[in-house]
């Protein structure tokens, strides 16, 4: 790797699948003149331009902000969620992380709860269903009051903020050997349970979100920590321990 722009020739092996019911297959492509300064998604855009010119179906993939905050650009790059770089979404991955002549394998997230819609795009509405089951605050918090009326200790504020940085991209599910959604669910639960307004419904929320998560067919956490390593936002396993505690509390208290 160097800081000087170089042009790469790449061999791409990309998963192509027409729709939910199609069996799918890998298709090999050769792409030339890829700048090391371009992003990974720009590289796929280049390929798609060529495919369109040839009258072929372009590779379908999700993308939106392209600045690492929306969580759309879900794909496995060479067997790693969002590619080889830590704390990086696919859109923030640049081609300077690759070398001339590399073969790059690109696959969609694989999980029973995230069915493939087309090529690299998966249906991740299961995450929305988990949020809808309890990832919100429904107690009446009254009118706006003086900020200092609700003391929040620094540690909890920091941890809630860290948990809230989850962008719901699904890399945790994709990287987990068990396709478990516990890191996502735990982050969405912790961000509320750690703060005074959210604490009131913490046990009930844990119970409802875990039930939804289970019913959607996600796996169980077996504490490998692959999710933590794959998370582009660095959400940590403490959140899952917190969820386990809140869930137990909900069952003990009958909520």
């Amino acid at each position, binding site marked *: 790797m160097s800081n000087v722009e170089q042009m790469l020739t790449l061999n791409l*092996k990309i*998963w192509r699948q027409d729709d939910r019911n199609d069996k799918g297959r*890998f298709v090999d492509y050769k792409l030339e003149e890829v700048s090391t300064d371009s992003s990974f998604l720009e590289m796929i855009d280049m390929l798609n331009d060529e495919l369109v010119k040839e009258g072929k179906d372009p590779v379908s993939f999700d993308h939106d902000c392209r600045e690492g905050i929306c969580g759309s650009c879900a794909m*496995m790059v*060479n*067997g*790693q969620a969002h590619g*080889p770089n830590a704390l990086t979404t696919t859109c923030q991955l640049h081609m300077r992380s690759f070398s001339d002549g590399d073969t790059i*394998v690109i*696959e969609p997230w*694989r*999980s*029973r*709860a995230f069915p493939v819609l087309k090529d690299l795009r998966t249906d991740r509405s299961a995450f929305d269903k988990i949020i809808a089951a309890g990832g919100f605050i429904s107690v009446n918090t009254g009118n706006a009051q003086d900020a200092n009326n609700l003391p929040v200790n620094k540690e909890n504020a920091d941890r809630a903020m860290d948990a809230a940085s989850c962008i719901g991209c699904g890399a945790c599910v994709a*990287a987990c*050997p*068990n*396709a*478990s959604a*516990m890191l996502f669910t735990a982050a969405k639960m912790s961000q509320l349970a750690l703060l005074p307004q959210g604490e009131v419904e913490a046990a009930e929320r844990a119970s409802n979100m*875990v*039930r939804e*998560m*289970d*019913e959607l*067919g*996600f*796996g*169980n*956490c*077996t*504490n*490998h*920590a*692959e*999710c*933590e*390593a*794959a998370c582009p936002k660095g959400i940590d*396993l*403490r959140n*899952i*321990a*917190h*969820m*386990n*505690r809140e*869930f*137990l509390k909900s*069952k003990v208290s009958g909520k």
Partner: protein
Amino acid sequence: MPSHNYFTSSIGKKQITAITGLGLVGFTAAHLAGNLLILVGADAFNAYGHGLISNPLIYVAEAILLAMFVTHIVMAALVTIQNTAARGKRYYIKNRSGHGETIASMTMPYTGIIMLVFIILHLINFKYGAHYETTVDGVVMRDLFKLVVEYFSNPLYVAWYVFAMIALGLHVGHGLQSSLQTWGLNHPSYTPKVKMISVAYGVLVAIGYSGLAVYCYFLN
């Protein structure tokens, strides 16, 4: 959809697997401590065994132990089946991060199956094995020491035993720290130490049990 309660939930099943696993980790420590009497001598080991089986509370202890084993296996099997189903289609290539999965964590179902086979054979070989008799301080009792030394005179038996004990070491090495996380105990400064203690305990039981097997081989 079956009703969702603690026992059918993902976290409930994990927590039950974890707590029974912790109980079984305790058993591995107690059993190893008993085995160490082999180093003291035949009489000490036989007298300890006799003391255990002639105490009526042994039936209660055995019932609890059996219940822990069965619950642990059933819950872990259910979790593993669900996890395999949740994955769906496998990846063409999957690179591990290097910061997550370990050999121990990846092989939990396999080391668990090895333990199950081992325990069944172990009970057949020893608990329900040949009944020799000896007299210690005028008391007639079972000569388990003779049976142990007899089995471990076979190098193949020693090799299988060592293999099973390495599986045990891997299983408890991940299981011990994993069970605390599952019960919600995770702390930025204690958890790394707990992980180290957990791995150290795994190494200790593997070496402890295997070492005694090798010792018995050389007694012959």
